[in-house]
């Protein structure tokens, strides 16, 4: 039957997701409830001590990750919104070129980009080395291996994911609706706050999700730019899994992170849900 065609065609995609997403998650859930070590083997004990131990031991890194991810997201929003606005309303016929420029960095590997940031920010690198040479910066000035470097790296790497959804939302705003606001005595600020901003909120919402989640879980920026004092939860999971072969702890941490992010997103959606914000803007 023809009307079943869409279902059949969608099936491989669903199976792909089912097999390669759900199965590993179930496996990981099972591992997170095992006890043992690599030499003696792991036994399914359904003990939650993996979770309590891991959270107790790594709460600093967990909180740090959320803070770094959160701060980076706020910075991305502040930097990205104006860029999205500018492309949507002011870039004219060059829109697609600017969008392409935005995506250009993705043609280079994420890790390589981060490492080159490391070069850029090195104490005696091209930027600071030169500035120090001219005496414009004190000799002991450094950015690498600081919180600033990690958050900066996160912002740099994920910024396009904030800009694009906001741009898409702004692009859909009918310019005549904005003119209608001016016509009805709204100042520029009022027109933005009452009309443009509320109508772009779905984009802001998507942008925040698409940046906060990966930024919080990201291990690369902290590893390359952060030094020892800025370890994030992603680094811990990596180390536990790949170096310590402590699979249960790594799995438990992964699930904890996932749960925290999901709860966070849920609260965010409820508190700042588009409906609520739109109601407020309509006043």
């Amino acid at each position, binding site marked *: 039957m023809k009307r079943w065609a869409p279902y059949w065609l969608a099936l491989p995609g669903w199976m792909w997701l089912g097999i390669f997403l759900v199965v590993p998650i179930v496996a990981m859930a099972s591992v997170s409830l095992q006890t043992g070590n690599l030499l003696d083997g792991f036994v399914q004990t359904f003990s939650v001590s993996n979770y309590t131990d891991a959270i107790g031991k790594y709460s600093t890194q967990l909180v740090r990750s959320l803070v770094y991810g959160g701060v980076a997201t706020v910075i991305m929003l502040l930097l990205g919104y104006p860029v999205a606005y500018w492309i949507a309303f002011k870039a004219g016929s060059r829109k697609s070129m600017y969008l392409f420029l935005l995506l250009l960095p993705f043609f280079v590997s994420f890790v390589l980009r981060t490492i080159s940031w490391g070069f850029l920010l090195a104490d005696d690198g091209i930027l600071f080395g030169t500035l120090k040479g001219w005496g414009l910066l004190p000799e002991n000035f450094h950015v690498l291996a600081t919180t600033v470097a990690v958050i900066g790296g996160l912002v740099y790497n994920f910024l396009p994911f904030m800009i694009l959804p906001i741009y898409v939302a702004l692009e859909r705003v*009918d310019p005549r609706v904005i*003119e209608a606001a*001016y*016509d009805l*005595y709204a100042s520029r600020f009022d027109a933005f706050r*009452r009309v443009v901003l509320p109508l772009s909120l779905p984009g802001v919402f998507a942008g925040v999700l698409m940046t906060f989640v990966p930024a919080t879980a990201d291990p690369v920026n902290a590893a390359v730019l952060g030094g020892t004092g800025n370890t994030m939860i992603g680094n811990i999971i990596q180390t536990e899994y790949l170096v310590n072969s402590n699979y249960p702890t790594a799995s438990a941490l992964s699930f904890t992170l996932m749960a925290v992010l999901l709860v966070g997103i849920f609260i965010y959606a409820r508190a700042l849900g588009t409906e609520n914000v739109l109601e407020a803007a*309509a006043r």
Partner: protein
Amino acid sequence: MTEAIPAIELDGVVKEYLSHGETVQAVKGVSLGIGEGEFFSLLGPSGCGKTTTMRMIAGFEEPTKGVVRLHGQDVTDVPPNKRDINMVFQSYALFPHMNVWENVAFGLRRRKVAEAEIKQRVGEILEIVDLTGREKRRPREMSGGQQQRVALARALVNRPRALLLDEPLGALDLKLRQLMQIELKRIQREVGITFVYVTHDQNEALTMSDRIAVMNDGLVEQLANPREIYERPATKFVAGFIGTSNLLSGTVESVSGSAAVVRLGAEDRILISSQATAGETVDLTVRPEKITISTEQPEGELSVVRGTVNEVVYLGTYNSYAVGLADGAEIMVFQQNANDSSVTAERGDTVWLSWQPQHSYAL
């Protein structure tokens, strides 16, 4: 009568755009005055500059040259949010995230009107546009006609000194459009505000307006009341754009006083009451419904031309004839079906067309 200050006045207004490195004049110098409480239409084909002219009145476009005055005050540099004028947009441009009430209250809230007064005024205007009880609806949950009335209420609630309407009925179907024309006229009488109506629909303009400015290619071709625009189009363009017109050209044969005789073919004779000199070639116009069609040569002081019927179309309230003249021109004739639907002539018949001298004149 003393000369009253016009509600809206355009003085030598020009608007130029830069398009692909070239300067394009959308409006080439428009001067006109719109009276207080008048229903004024800007009528013309798309690209004639009527929308640009309206946007300059609203303040969305700044004139390249010229002055815009509202009630005698120069507002050329005043932004739209500081002008005491509101606009009904072509696609309504309602705020999609607000319900009807919030849409209508938007302007009053920006003007910091007290909540109690907002409540009263919004309630009143929603009653005028017949939307009471639909305050909580979102625009997308409403029909085109309802959205149109929300747009109207949203503008009128502010009691502007003039209302600009940019093809407000364009998105509606014919039935609803005719209904809304009457509705608009009623509302305008009720609130007594100056309406400036932009449209490309001549019927709309003729039905509703007190005066019409017919625009073409960035200029006003004629500014007059609907009757005059229809009966005495000032230019070839107006004659062709408003209704159906027959454009003829012939040679002036003789002149006596202020009347002239124009000859097309050997048996054709058109009487016009314009200044003309013998031997001159003139363009003249006559409306299809002014012409009488007959199979015998008519008597009397009439304009008469002879031709052959090329086509007869029965159109319900009238018959339409296409009559070919000797010189190749074709004349449209509308014959009212007043008594019976039988036609005077059939395809291929030779007929005489006649009309009163005052119905044709040189352009």
